């Protein structure tokens, strides 16, 4: 079957911009052109609905992928420590032998037995670790108890969430009453595509219970246009 949109260069050009209209990352002039075309072209409007469906499911699919384990940061910091310091120190110590403090230190170290140097090195390493722990603890405390990612704010395993978007015609009062009815609260959003991450209860809720809440929310089609359980 011929694709009437794709075979018309002008409509095809607009059609290819629809995903960027849907994610909110489009120039104002293009947005205006698309909105004018959508008002008069039912095929284009239908394509936009398909894109919004796919976008919602893509968000859900990605949100369910979880997060990397803490060992990634541990390994990264260990790598940074390993590569950062030795070369410059060695170079400076070698260059400075016989000159000033570094030269004196180099001479002193060179005069020590290997075993004594090893003990001294171990003590120094332990001291550095202790300092690191203390500094990191202070920094984390100053930051309010821990870092939060911009991409998954407020998400932790003690709560259950749904992902939803509101119907364009929903009124503020209806939305407020909706949240009250479900004892729900927004923890993230809106994203450019209009999705919110919403807390619907604590971790004691089973998957089936969260699905049931999502289904009840979905039934309120005058207020929400998309709802699905989210990790």
């Amino acid at each position: 079957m011929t694709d009437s949109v794709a075979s018309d260069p002008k409509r095809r050009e607009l059609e290819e911009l629809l995903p960027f209209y849907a994610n909110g990352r489009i120039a104002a002039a293009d947005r205006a052109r698309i909105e004018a075309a959508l008002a008069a072209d039912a095929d284009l409007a239908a394509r936009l609905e398909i894109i919004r469906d796919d976008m919602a499911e893509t968000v859900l699919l990605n949100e369910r992928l979880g997060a990397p384990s803490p060992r990634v940061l541990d390994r990264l910091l260990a790598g940074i420590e390993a590569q950062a310091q030795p070369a410059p120190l060695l170079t400076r110590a070698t260059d400075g032998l016989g000159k000033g403090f570094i030269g004196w230190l180099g001479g002193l170290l060179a005069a020590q037995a290997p075993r004594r140097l090893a003990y001294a090195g171990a003590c120094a390493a332990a001291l550095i670790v202790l300092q690191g722990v203390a500094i990191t603890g202070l920094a984390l405390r100053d930051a309010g108890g821990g870092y939060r990612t911009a991409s998954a704010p407020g998400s932790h395993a003690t709560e259950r969430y749904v992902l939803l978007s509101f119907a364009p015609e929903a009124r503020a009062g209806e939305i407020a009453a909706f949240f009250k009815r479900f004892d729900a609260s927004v923890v993230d959003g809106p994203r450019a595509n209009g999705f919110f991450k919403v807390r619907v209860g604590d971790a004691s809720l089973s998957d089936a219970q969260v699905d049931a809440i999502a289904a009840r929310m979905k039934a309120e089609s005058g207020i929400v246009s998309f709802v699905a359980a989210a990790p």
Partner: protein
Amino acid sequence: MHTESDEDLVKRIASGDRLAMKVLFSRHQVRVYRFVLRLVRDETLAEDVIGDVFMDLWRQADRFEGRASVATWLLAIARNKAWSQLRKRRDAALDDDYAANIEDESDGPEIVLQKQDKGLAIRACLERLSAEHREVVDLVYYHETSVEETARIVGIPENTVKTRLFHARKKLGEMLKAAGIDRGWP
């Protein structure tokens, strides 16, 4: 509370500030990880890749020119490393292992349709797109990138971004249609 911009953090990282590195990592690790995981489909490998990405950031922070956002820069580095791994490990076993670890999502669209859930069927088809199609769909639909940012991350011209996404969407529609869900296009 004042939140330091990514660009300011990169400047601090360029001067060897480890705390800035931790903050930037915490801010971007999840999204970069998910982007890589969707490409390589192996959690351990994805973690290795993002470790390499942020190590590159640590080493090259002084070369950041600010022509693109830090997020775009990170995703571009991640994409190159992920594809490098894909080329090395592109074998059927990797995909099979990953598919076995996906529960409902691993059902074919036909089986999913029997469960009467259109959303699941769409997600099952999204999983089955080619890596080239998956990455543009994820970038635009999940990471909310513009045409220009997508082009920069993937390393293709802007017009190619639009046509590649068009074909990915068309392929998705064809897969759904074959599974019994006709959305009117294609």
